[in-house]
């Protein structure tokens, strides 16, 4: 259908200027009240998406695995006595589902315990980048002018630095890699993306009629920013944050693989892949099992992000 009529008040024109008929009417109730029902609409929509259901179940299992790994395995891989060098690279068996690694440790138990670091790094980095990038983006978009120009130039600088190499450098400064330094290194390089998205969304929201009206009615800057603009600009940030969560988990594994991230004896899937690598061609299991878990975890978060995006804003597709 291509008929469009410019919006004109009926009483002032000869045109048949009534609003176009609802060809595809909103069957969902309460569409008028925008922010509240956007979320309830999205939730209604999400619950019936197979992608969302699948990824939610996966993520729930992974979170439980991160919190209570002992529910999944009776072996505590942190205890070095559970490893026997003589059984190194044993293939999978009933007792050791994923076999043994180069040091004769149980790959299954280590893989289960590896979930914790991935989940912590993923979630904390996401929260930190969303808060920092989001807040700065809100300020830049709201303030405009010189503030915006300066802040935008600064983010451009960060965009120019290749992220894995940048993270590698930052981690080298710290000497010891752990969950927090990895989180920091990733966040330092990732916040500009959230900044950009938030800034664009705020600039769009700022020019909306209801914001202009609120301003005209004398709403203060703080109230405008947090009551009127933020709720309407936060959607794209949430979508990108969910997708990035998976990317952070992937990046943690990469940095740990390179030896600058998580260090033994802490267990991370990246560390496991790195450890298994020298004998990879003889025994692929110790590398492939954590790799599979890593992939599924990243996949789960990216599927969740895709589903959330489709539900919240079909236009972002």
């Amino acid at each position, binding site marked *: 259908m291509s008929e469009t009529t410019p919006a004109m008040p009926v009483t002032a024109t*000869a045109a*048949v200027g009534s609003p176009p008929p*609802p*060809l595809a009417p909103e069957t969902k109730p309460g569409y008028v009240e925008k922010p509240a029902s956007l979320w309830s609409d999205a939730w209604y929509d999400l619950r019936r998406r197979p992608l969302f259901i699948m990824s939610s179940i996966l993520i729930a299992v992974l979170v439980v695995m991160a919190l209570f790994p002992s529910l999944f395995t009776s072996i505590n891989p942190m205890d070095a006595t559970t490893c026997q060098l003589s059984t190194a690279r044993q293939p999978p068996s009933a007792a050791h589902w994923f076999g043994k690694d180069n040091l004769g440790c149980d790959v299954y138990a280590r893989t289960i315990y590896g979930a914790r670091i991935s989940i912590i790094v993923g979630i904390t980095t996401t929260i930190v980048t969303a808060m920092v990038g989001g807040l700065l983006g809100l300020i830049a978009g709201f303030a405009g002018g010189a503030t915006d120009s300066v802040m935008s130039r600064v983010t451009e600088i960060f965009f120019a630095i290749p992220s894995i190499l940048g993270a590698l450098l930052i981690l080298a400064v710290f000497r010891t890699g752990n969950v927090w330094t990895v989180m920091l290194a990733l966040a330092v390089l990732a916040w500009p993306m959230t900044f950009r998205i938030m800034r664009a969304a705020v600039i769009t929201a700022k020019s909306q009629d209801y914001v202009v009206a609120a301003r005209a009615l004398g709403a203060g800057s703080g109230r405008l920013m947090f009551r009127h603009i933020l709720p309407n600009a936060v959607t794209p940030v949430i979508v990108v944050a969910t997708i990035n969560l998976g990317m952070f988990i992937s990046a943690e594994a990469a940095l740990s693989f390179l030896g600058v991230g998580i260090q033994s004896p802490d267990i991370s899937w990246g560390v496991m892949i790195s450890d298994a690598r020298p004998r990879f061609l003889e025994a692929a299991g110790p590398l492939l099992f954590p790799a599979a878990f890593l992939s599924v975890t990243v996949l789960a978060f990216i599927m969740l992000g895709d589903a959330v995006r489709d539900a919240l804003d079909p236009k972002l597709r």
Partner: protein
Amino acid sequence: MMTTHTDVLPTEGGLGNTPLLAVDNLHVEFSTRQGVVKAVNGVSYDLYQGETLAVLGESGSGKSVTAQAIMGILDMPPARIPHGEIRFRGTDMLKLTDEARSQIRGQRIAMIFQDALSALNPVFTVGWQIGEMFRVHRGMSKRDAQKKAIELMDRVRIPAAKQRVHDYPHQFSGGMRQRIMIAMSIALDPEVLIADEPTTALDVTVQAQIMELLAELQRESNMGLILITHDLGVVADVADKIAVMYGGRIVEKALVHDVYRTPAHPYSKGLLDSIPRVDLKGQELYAIKGLPPNLLAMPPGCAFNPRCPYRQDNCVSEAPPLYEISHTRSSACHYWREVLDGSHE
């Protein structure tokens, strides 16, 4: 279902008895997630050579969908044509092969769209886009096609056509862009030209110029012209006859001056009353109350009944057929007599 057909309207320009283009009991539906939308429900109209037919209606009345069905540019699916014929010089185009259809499209039946800025391709020069008609359909060389494009731009009175042929659409003003659209559509001397709200996006002075240009081109080439519009004022001077559409149906068909003088359908009457008039200056303008019908949930009986000042009980229960009032006009209103009488006051 339609019961009466009053399609043989003798008009000034009509030659012979076979219409150039005949839309006959056309139905178009769209399948959407919410259900099947019946956008066009049994529309019939004829167009003779040299004649101008204005199709009037608001958004969603089915006027543009009908035009797109004639052009064969509906997306099918989701669109579907369950019944009806569209005869071009006696041949039902809906039965033709895609190949045969595309031989007619653009060459013998051409179309102008509402918003020329979005209807023209932003990345090609206007010369390229006009010339394409000659290159693709007539196998002309680039240079000859370019020459033809300049001639056409001259013909639609674009100043400095020779230089501007190398410009891109966004470099033209709205009126000039619509002229380019027109130049492109008349490139191969079509027998039928459909103009879908050709002036809606333009300001009033330019509107008049474009209408004048269309009327003039039509006189010169004796083509049949279908003017689709929601604005009665725009077509009054150029159209010969009019078909008013509402909710996917034709509610009134008449010669243009008959409708102006004495509308025979409450909807046409409402449209006329809402035109600002110099002699009634200062008075509040009439507006048809209510909203256009929801095509997914059409009111029972006559689609216009919820907004109609003439409504009686049977309007809700019984859909009016297209009553033949005279052999030049018909109205789909049970109470067309009362409406006519009311118009005579």
